[in-house]
Each structure stands twice: as C-alpha cells, then as structure tokens.
C-alpha cells in the first residue's frame, strides 16, 4: 500500500508539472496582455503603458516569465494578482475558497444524499410511479439550461414569493458593524461542518458492529447531543445571527444545485444496485428471512456504494472550483468566478494560481478515492 501511495504521489507531481505548463502557455496564448486594458485612455501618457508592463513583468520574454512562474509555484509563492493588484494570489484564494466550499460542498452532500436515497428506492421498487416520476423529473432537471433555471428559482422564490434573498451571500444591513467579517464566519461554519462530520463518522464507525436497533439509537442520540452543543456554541459566540444570514442566502443556490445534479447520483445508484440485486448473497439474505430494509440497506446498498462513493469524492474535489454560472446567477463570488475573471482579464498569476490550486486538489482527491476503495472494499488490494 505504502509503495503504491509513493508511486501515486510521484505521478501527481509529474502531472501537476505538465498541468502547470499547459495552463501557463494556454493562458498566455491569448492576444495582448493585461497592460493593454490600462492603455486605452487617450489622455494617458505613453510612458504609463511601459510602466504598467514593467510593474506586471509582462515585458519579459515568455520563457523567462514561465521560469519565474514555475519557480514561484514550486516555492509556494503564487505571486501577485494583476487585476487585484497588489493583493497576493494566495490572499485572493484564501478569501474566495471558504465561500465556495461552504456552498458547493453543502450542495454536493445534499445532492448526493438525495440522489443516493432516491436511487436506492427506485432500484428496489422498480416500475412504480416513484421511479417514473423521479427519473423523468431528475433527468429533466439534469438537462435543464442552468442559467435559466437559476433565474427562475430566484424569480419564483425570492422575487415573487419573497421567501429568500435575491442572490448574494449576506444582507449588508444585517452585517453593518458586524463583530466579525464574512470569511471568519464562513471558516467557522466549515470548522463546524468538519467537527460534526468527524463526530458522525466516529459514531458510525464505533456503533457499526452493534445490533441495528441499539446502533441507531446511539447514533441518533450522540449526533443530536452534538448538534445541540454546536448550536449552543454558535448562540453564545455572538456571530450566530451572521451565520444564520449566510444560511438563509444559501438555501436557494443549494436547492438549485441539488435539483440540477441529484439525478446523476440517483441513476448511478440505481444501476449499481440493479447489478448487485441479482447476486447470490442477496438471495441468501432474503432466504434467511431478513427484513426487506435490512436486505436493501445492508446487503445491496452497501455493496453498490463503491462507484457512487467514487463519483461523490470526485464531486467534492471539483466543488473547489465552484461553478461560474451558479456563482454569477446567485451573486456568490467564489473560486469559479475568480478563475473565469482572471482568465478573461489575463491576470496570469491569479489564473495559473487558481488552476494549480484546483488541479492539486483534484489530484489529491483521486489519491483519496484510491485509498478509500481499499477501505470500502476489502477485496481491493494494491
């Protein structure tokens, strides 16, 4: 296993280098450079353009710029953003990443959960109205034009019904003179999610071998207590109302993301379960007289989980680059928006830095998925 991980890490380093090179030259293949954007003022002295080029270093030959970027990236210095000058790329990513993670990780988890649950049900009860409705609805939403659907969601639930805010991730009036900035609250929310996830994971790990009834009671009890404690901490923190404001703003984009993406997981789960359902051990479980739910959840669903979890891990990895459409429609400026804006404005350090960050995360997610395989399926050995 260790040898395998070392081998994979070396592959990742090589892939990352190739990726970095391709990204650099692709971004540079665009005509012009960012200094041009500041040169189209007829009253601007010509020296200014030269000054801008020097400031950004775009007056150097391309190979020299490439070497500088390579060196900077390898030393962990992603440079200074051109379009947000003089902010560093790391600073920009630090600002945008938590927002993206909170929104898209939540949406990915919710979507996965909904898709997995529905997939399980429609695989078990084939031919019923639930299957037809879920499949038709899911596939329709999966193929819907995302910007239109997002705007319809806003129009219907935010503008007409007035249930949710029209885009953005906070209400400025609520945040006036707030004791904390949004990023701190986002980070606290992420920390809370991590803590709750770890507790849940541990609880399931510890109680997994126990009797079904007892296991469920323990799981529900411990998780409920944890949630109450977490809520108590938030209440006493003085920033709870700020987190709630963010949660209010998250509902509509998460609902939109979930509706347009749950069908993928649902159909994958369904297909995977239909393969497992024909296995002899499922027949044996039924022959033993186990309840239907136990057969479905413990014998079929668990064995059908492998491809679904793999897909889920990759979804989590790609959550880091957000989605420029959803971010634009819901005025939620995160990593996706940053990536596109940096590329279009030829902000080379920010574009390359963001790509590298996303690329690294995806490569690590692949590694994690491989390791997870071995854990989920003891038959898999490297």
């Amino acid at each position, binding site marked *: 296993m260790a040898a395998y991980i070392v081998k994979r890490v070396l592959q990742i380093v090589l892939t990352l280098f190739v990726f970095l090179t391709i990204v650099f030259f692709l971004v540079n293949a665009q005509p012009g450079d960012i200094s*041009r954007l500041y040169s189209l003022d*007829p009253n*601007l002295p010509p020296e200014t353009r030269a000054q801008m080029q020097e400031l950004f270093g775009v007056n150097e030959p391309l190979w020299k710029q490439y070497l500088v970027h390579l060196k900077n990236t390898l030393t962990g210095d992603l440079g200074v953003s051109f379009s947000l000058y003089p902010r560093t790329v790391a600073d920009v990513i630090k600002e945008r990443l938590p927002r993206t993670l909170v929104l898209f990780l939540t949406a990915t988890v919710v979507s996965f959960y909904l898709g997995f649950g529905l997939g399980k049900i429609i695989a078990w009860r084939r031919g019923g109205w639930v299957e037809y409705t879920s499949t038709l609805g899911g596939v329709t939403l999966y193929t819907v034009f995302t910007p239109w659907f997002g705007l319809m969601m806003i129009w219907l639930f935010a503008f007409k019904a007035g249930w949710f805010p029209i885009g953005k991730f906070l209400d400025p009036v609520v945040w006036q003179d707030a004791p904390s900035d949004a990023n701190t609250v986002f980070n606290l929310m992420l920390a809370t999610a991590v803590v709750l996830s770890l507790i849940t994971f541990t609880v399931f790990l510890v109680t997994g071998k126990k009797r079904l009834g007892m296991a469920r009671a323990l799981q529900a009890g411990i998780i*409920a207590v944890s*949630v109450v404690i977490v809520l108590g901490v938030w209440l006493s923190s003085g920033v*709870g109302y700020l987190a709630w404001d963010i949660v209010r703003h998250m509902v509509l984009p998460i609902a939109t993301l979930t509706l347009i993406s749950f069908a993928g997981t649902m159909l994958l789960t369904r297909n995977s379960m239909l393969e497992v359902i024909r296995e002899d051990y499922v027949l044996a479980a039924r022959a033993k007289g186990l309840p239907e739910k136990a057969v479905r959840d413990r014998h079929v669903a668990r064995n059908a989980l492998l491809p679904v979890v793999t897909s889920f891990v990759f979804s989590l990895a790609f959550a880091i680059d957000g989605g420029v459409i959803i971010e634009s429609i819901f*005025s939620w400026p995160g990593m996706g928006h940053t990536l596109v804006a940096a590329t279009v404005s030829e902000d080379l350090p920010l574009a390359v830095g963001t790509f590298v960050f996303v690329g690294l995360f995806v490569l690590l997610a692949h590694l994690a998925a491989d390791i997870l395989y071995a854990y989920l399926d003891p038959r898999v050995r490297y």
Partner: protein
Amino acid sequence: MVKSLSKRAVFLVAGFALAMAAMDCGAEAPAPTERVVTVPVEVERVVEVERVVTVEVPVERVVEVERVVEVTPDATAAPDATAAAPAGPAIYKMGLFEDPISRNTWNYLGGPAGSVWTGYVIGGYHTSLYGYSPQRFDWVPAVADGLPTPLAKETVDGTEFWTTEVSIKQGVEWSDGEPLTADDFVFTLSTVRELSLGSNWASLVHPAFVDRAEALDEHRLKIYFKSTDDEGNAQTPGLSIWQFGLAFMPILPEHYWAPVVEDARQAGEVPQQIEALFAHVPDGEPTANGLEYGQWEPGAFFENSTVPDYYGQGTQVTEYANGAYEATNERLGYTETYYGDPTGDTVLELEIGPHFESEIFSIYGNQDSAILALTKGDIDFLFNPLGLEKGFLDRVRQTADLQVVENLDNGVFYLGFNTRKPPMNNQAFRQAVATVIDKEFVTRTILQDTAIPMYAMVPEGNAFWYNNETAKIGQGLGRGERIAAAVELLKDAGFTYEKEPEVSEDGAFVVNGGEGLRMPDGTEVPELELIAPSAGYDPLRSTFAIWIERWLNDLGIPTKARLIGFNLIVEKLFSETVDKDLDMWILGWGFTIFPNYLENIFHSRHSPELEEGGVNWGGYANPEFDELAAGLLSETTIEGAREKALQMQALLAEDLPYVTLFTTPKIDVFRPVKVEYPYTTVLGGMAQAQGLQHVVLIK
C-alpha cells in the same frame, strides 16, 4: 439504515434551522438601521439643460469676478436644521457588478485599481482645488478660495517658470478635524512627482509642465510650471495642464500619508516604492469630501459613512439661466459667484450633502439579479456602465416603481483609417466612404434607436465644446444619392472604374456593385480589411461593420469585414507593424469634458512610429491640425481653447481620419419612491456622476 438516516437528517436539519431561526429572532440580531425621513428641502428639479455655457477662466489677464463674502456666522453654531437635509440614519443603497479593487487613492489613480467600480466607491473621498459644478460642468473652486492669480513669468535661481498663486478656504477640514492646508497639496504633488506616478496621476500632474508647488503660508500656495520643454523650446501651461489638469488633482492628507510614503521610500528602487505605497491599506485615512470608509465585505458590499460636521454639507448651489453660478456655505461663511450676475431664472438649485448616514454598494453577479433587486427595493440605484440591453430596458420601463433616465454619453464609436496606406491616405476616398455610410439607417432601422448617429469628434452632449457646424457628409441622402455622390468624389480625385455601380430606378438599392476601381496612379484598389469587435462583444459595432462592408463593396471598394475579439483588435493596433497591417478598424473612445483628447488622438507626434504607446494608430498627419492641436494645449483662455477645438472638429469632419459613427445613450435606473435627485440630466449619465451621491435625497 439509509432511510432512517434520511429521517434523522431531515430532523437534524429542521432542528438546526429552527434553532437558527430562534437565534435570528434573538436579541443579538441588530435591528435594521434604515428609517424613512422627511426631507424639508425645497429643490427645483430641472428636467433638461442644454445650453452653451460661457465660461471665463482667467489665466493671463485680470478678470472681474464678483465675489460676495457675507458676514461669517458663528462657526460653532449648528447648521440650520430646516435648510439642511436630515442627518438621520437614511441609507443610500446602490448596486455594483464588481468589487472595487482597492481603497488606496494612490493605487486608484496611479495603478491597476483604477477601475470604474473603484471610482464609484472611493471617488467621493477626496477633494481638489477646483472642480466641475453639478450638472453644467462649470469650472469652479472646490477648496480653493476664489480664482488663481493669472500665470506670470518668474525667474528663480536663474530658471524661468510660469507661476500662479492659489488660496485655500479657511475652515476646510479633514474628517479627523485636522485643517486642510497648502502643505497637503504640496505633499500630494511632491509624492506624485518624486515617485513618477503614472496613469491618471500623470494626466493630472503633467510631468513635462509641472515643476513643483510651495506653501506660502498655511492657506496660500504657489505653483511653478516649467517654461521650456526638455529641448529648450518655450512652452505655456495651458488649460489642459493647469485648470483642467493640476487643479483637479485630489489632495491627500499629509498627516496620514507622510509616514506611509516615508516607509515606502525605504522599499528599494522606485518600482518597489510604488508597490509598497499601493499595497498600503488606508485604515483610518481621513477624507475631505463628506464620505469616509465604513466597511467592506469583498464580494458582498462596500459601505461609506457620512463624515460628521463635514464643512461642505449644506452648501447651497444655484445655477442661473444666464450662465451665472453661485455657491453659499454658511458654515465657512462665504458666498461666491462666477460667470455673471446671479439674477434671473435659475436652472438648478440644490444643497450639497451627503443627505444620508451611510451608503451601501451591494455587489451583484449579473444584470437579472440586480434588476430584480432594484424592483424589489433591495437597492435604489444601479451602477450599470455596461448598458442595458433592449429586453431589459423594456422590462424596466414597464415596472411602475422604477424610473429610467437616458443621457447623452461623452464618447464616440468610429471607423478609423490607416492614413499611411493608399487608398486610405486619400481624403476623397475617405469622404466617399463616409458618404455611403448611412448612420441614420443603421441606428434607427436596424438598431432601433439604441444608438445615436454622430458627425463630430466631440459628442453633442458636451455642448460647450461641441461644434454643430461641422460637415455632415452624407446626412439625409438616399441610397442612390449616396452612391452617386461617392462615385463623383472618387472620380474627381482621379479614381477610375471599369464598371460604375448601378442603382435601381427608384434609387433605393444598388443593382450591380462597382467593379475594377483603380486609384489615381492606376493601380487597382486592393481588398481592404475592416476589423471590428464581434457581435458577442458589441452587437452595435459589429452591425455597423457588416453594413459598411456591404456599402463599400456596392461602391466597388473590395472590403472584407473581420469581426474578431476585442483583445485581437487592440493587439493589432499596438503592434509594431500597425503601419503596414492595418486598413480600417472600428472601436470607441470615452472622453473627458475638456477636449484635449483631440490632440492626443490625432496629432502626428502621437503616431506609434514616433511615440511608443501613441494612440494615433492611423498615422494621421496634417500640419494644419497639428498647429491647432499644439495651440489647444498651450491655450490659456477658455474662449481661445473653444475656438481651437471647434476648428479642429471642423477640420477633422472634412479630412476624416475617423468617420465618427455613433454614440450610445447612457441609461440609468433608480427607484423614485425611495430616492430623489435634484437633476437627472447629466452628460455621461448618472453613473458617471457617481450616482449623484453628494446631492441625492433619501425619502
């Protein structure tokens, strides 16, 4: 197991949501600070002002200026509550599409932070010696006490300078209570000069002319301009250098910035020093224009607060139909009038604010959401420099709570010629091209009035500088008449046809295009390339390009329109081989009020071959124009400058290095139920006037 997990998850989520809702209702959530306030101010709203402003800005001569100084009231007395707008917790809510880049003014005016979004947000922080009056753009004092002394020649240590003296009003203070003094101006100017700050700083503080300034006392300044250029030729700092240049330079507080600049100067070479200065986050920076930084949540909103006891608040401004301008500030104890007697009809009366407690700029990712937010009442005004598409506009016009205002833009979209290459170097050829372009047809019939045809290089909205008498080649002609006129122009200039274009009997369309067009030297006119932005970037310019291509081919000028990315066009214009590769192109310019841009765009010295980064891409060279342009830069009287600007426009409209095509109306949208503006007609639109932040009234 999974189903039971689902149930639990639903329970947990519901519990979490309920708990959060309870928190939301708890005592910790701050109550919204918005309050509806009645504003007891009489404001005459001016619907339209379109007049020639006769401005007298004396520089080299003594001009009589009526200046009435009233008895200074008790400086500690509170301003008249009935006259001033309430200082209640009203909030001016505006929408943006992007964050500002920085709130560092050095960076905003000298570095990459100079985006329009940054300008909307921090443009109201600092003041200058002189500025423009509201709506009419009269040149009037801001913190200067009256007009400057006329420029005079003075020799210091054997070097001759042009000098002028300016006083700063007594009682003008920074937001932290420190007085704004002549030293602040000197500090700002020296920093710009010593660090050679570029971009807008260089436009304001022209390095070839501005030498230095010195404080004669706390409130008196002396400014020195170089009287010769680097080659020893005599030069005069004209209006564009002094009145419309240095006099508009924002003044930054020395007591805040001096230590920062001092630290930056330790950072190494000048580029590193600039980088260090730009990198400074100006927490606690005092301002002097009524607004100061409040809060910034990147990606969400930016908030400015009104400065308590702002010296300018409550200033009554009146503009008269006879051209007179009057400003009265009881707090500082002055009334000043310019440009004639303040008598007769008034065209504008307003009180300088800000008339709110704070202003919030919310950031939206797209127009749809922003318009919905505006309709719903989340924001009151939307900064939308990208313009509204027709579908949006129709929708907004049908919304009862929204008001749409259209203003003329201070910009132009044009067809440029590479005047170095034949046949574009032939004036008759350019005139023939201009003749066949039916701007009215494209703007009205095709583009459905989303654009306005233009004939002069100065937009009509810039009324004082606009020349309405320029040649309007082709205006009002039918298709057949255009073709006939263009053919005649070409033939008169020595061009020949193998086959002239044929027009239908009713003259409505061309039956057969011209063929075998030859230049006066007998060589065939080669296929010309017309580059223009693609429809995705700008449908207006691409539409024009397609029609121009068709009309030129009808005339027998083989032309191929290439609709390409904006970056590609810019790349081509800045290319070292622009003189050889370029034929014709369509782009646009945004302008300042003072038309010195005519010199920057068309003077032969700004050809890329002669000046790196020069924007005279077409290589236009006309000694008569050059002389006028040079004269404009050194002109020291408004009348003289105007005369030259009018002549330059007339010459350009005949000689046509550019065929001006159209301009676009600037459309602004706001909620009249929530905000009231003393005027909405303003050149460049309300957004360019920064949403009228200093005069808006919150209902």
